[in-house]
């Protein structure tokens, strides 16, 4: 059966990027239903974060006559209307409908100058889902980057902007990088300006959100010669390895920062000393039993043991990032052991 279970539309993936560009307008070239679906999901997310901003999303609102005669005129009019809102950039996302009727979206976008108008092919039926839209948007937007000299700084690539803990993950990576004196050059793309995207090539290292972004990492490495680290840090050992890896890329001595981080981790495990001796088993978000190497490592460091009859403790998806992520995880495990 081909019913999808764990992914969204290609459009949603692309919108999770384009709506994070400050001052952007995103045009969804298709029927209004496609835009409503996504606008509503983004609204839900903003509401969940108590963020009153709503992304600027326009639909070309194609109807039957456009399907018959083609939707390029409607797109041209929509881009003109979007330009009237003085955006920093206009991103044009295609849909299944415009893919099927064969509108030349790229050509319509090329007809505009002044404001950057970027075409991102995102017809949902192209076989991919959310992830492909995310990747497609990042690779399309990298065309805005100017090839420039490197500075000792890192880019964050492919942050999952729809994640509830997006800001916590960012803050933790920023803290770890600051501990070894590396600033962030560009968040590609999360609350990012067009100017910051244009400086993308200056970052000395691309830190990918997770290994699913390796395609984008390789693409940027080829294009700008920027090496990449394939994931935000996960778990206690993973966090130390992350510091070592960044240190290697920038040829820095990070032993002091590592010692401090290990001490921080030790303090956290001490804070949760009531968990020592507890027997636990790991459960996925649906409550099914699962296994996780990083959870075993954290459990062991906290003095817990894994047992089939142990307390069911959650393995969060996505896994919390860095040393502070361990603290978040242990709060949830302690609550599960008390329940």
């Amino acid at each position, binding site marked *: *059966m081909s019913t999808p279970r764990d992914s969204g539309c290609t459009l949603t993936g692309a919108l999770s990027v384009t709506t994070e560009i400050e001052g952007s307008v995103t045009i969804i070239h298709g*029927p209004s239903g496609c835009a409503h679906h996504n606008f509503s999901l983004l609204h839900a997310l903003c509401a969940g974060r108590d963020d009153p901003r709503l992304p600027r999303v326009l639909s070309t609102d194609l109807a039957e006559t456009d399907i018959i005669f083609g939707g390029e005129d409607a797109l041209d009019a929509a881009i003109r209307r979007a330009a009237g809102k003085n955006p920093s950039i206009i991103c044009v996302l295609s849909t299944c409908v415009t893919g099927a009727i064969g509108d030349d979206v790229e050509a319509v976008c090329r007809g505009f100058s002044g404001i950057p108008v970027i075409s991102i092919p995102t017809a949902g039926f192209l076989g991919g889902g959310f992830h492909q839209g995310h990747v497609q948007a990042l690779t399309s937007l990298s065309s805005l980057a100017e090839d420039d000299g490197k500075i000792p700084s890192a880019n964050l690539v492919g942050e999952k902007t729809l994640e509830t803990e997006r800001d916590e993950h960012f803050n933790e990576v920023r803290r770890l990088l600051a501990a070894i004196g590396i600033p962030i050059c560009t968040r590609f793309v999360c609350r990012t300006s067009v100017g910051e995207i244009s400086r993308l090539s200056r970052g000395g290292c691309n830190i990918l959100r997770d290994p699913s972004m390796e395609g984008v990492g390789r693409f940027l490495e080829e294009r700008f010669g920027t090496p990449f680290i394939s994931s935000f840090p996960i778990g206690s050992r993973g966090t130390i390895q992350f510091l070592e890896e960044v240190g290697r890329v920038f040829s820095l001595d990070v032993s002091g920062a590592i010692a401090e981080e290990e001490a921080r981790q030790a303090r956290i495990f001490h804070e949760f000393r009531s968990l020592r001796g507890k027997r636990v088993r790991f459960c996925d978000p649906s409550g099914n039993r699962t296994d996780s190497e990083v959870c075993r490592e954290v459990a062991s460091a906290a003095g817990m043991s894994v047992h089939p009859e142990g307390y069911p403790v959650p393995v969060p998806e996505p896994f919390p990032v860095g040393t502070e992520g361990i603290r978040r995880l242990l709060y949830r495990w302690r609550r599960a052991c008390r329940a």
Partner: protein
Amino acid sequence: MHDCSGPLWPCALTGAAAALAGIGGIGVVIHGSAGCYYYPSSVLHLPLYCSSVTDRDIILGTEDALVRTIDAIRDKYDLVAVLCTCIPAITGEDIRGMLEQAYSDSTRICVIDAPGFSGEYEDGFRSAIRAIDPPVSGGKTGVNIDGLSPFDPFRQGNFQEAQRLLGLAGTVAGAALPSGKYRYGQPLSPYTLHTNPDLTLDLGESLGCLVGLSRIEDAIRRIASFTGGADDLLEHDIPLAREKITAACDRFIKKFDPPHVALFGQCRTMQEIALMLEEYLDADILVIGSRNPPVPGKYRVGRARDYDTVVEILSRENPDLVLGSSFERYACPGAAFVGVTPPLRGTVRLHSRPLAGIEGALALFESVLNACMDHAKRRPDDPSP
């Protein structure tokens, strides 16, 4: 103007899925790309299936993808409803002929055209119910309840309230459609009571609608005309509700000016709510922003299906009370707000709150008066709410 900025209302496909996915015995297959599946699946919280067509299917034909999906579920359901999205509508494949050839009489399949570009949520909703053609039987007792869409956050509350009122009126709830208590193929009673005036279905004789106290009274009188017993409701419950609402509104008006109100949602429903607000609270109804095609009524109505239009209406009318969805709440943070239209994001909702029926009217006024008083407390020098 062709484009719309931040569309606020779902398309015909979501309407069709909302109409059928809650009916027992029907397996709903969305025939289109995976993207078309994701949104209805996430907002309806009901089982849906998808043929997940790809570009290869567009070139070579979508039959394999559709048949594969139907094969996987057909044993579980009495009827498989295939909802055709924009893509099969554009490619023009003969889906009915294709499925007739593949299954003949071995599987009961109903093909419904629901491309998003062809219509509104309500169009898709009604055409899907028409397509399955629920049989009406003269011998069936009870009263059907319709308008119970799983997209509606008040659905469960409305269902419980309609059941309660029917019981007090001396009869029982029959089928509840589409997402209440109904299995495909079961005969319906010849009488139907509506819980949403914008989603009425043509199923037997209409007994009226449960939104608005006057409408409720009319509906109960009609029911009483054949049950012979709704005296408690007509002589006690409805007058008592009116008395409570009047007393609470009087207390409010003694201290504050009546609110200037803008309502956003399905047109008929908003008109019924506006009538009550005017009658009991002397509210000034500034405008109704309609998500679906407007119908004429007592108040000024404009189409409000996209966010920019909502913002424009709100800044022009400057209401001090807004009834609508969380989109309106975000667009007009300075006004008192009551949620009556989906989506209602950013708030915790655990219990089954009705908008229809006597309890629905009481709950509405409770929310309106509390919102207006809270709003007034934030602006202590201003008597307007």
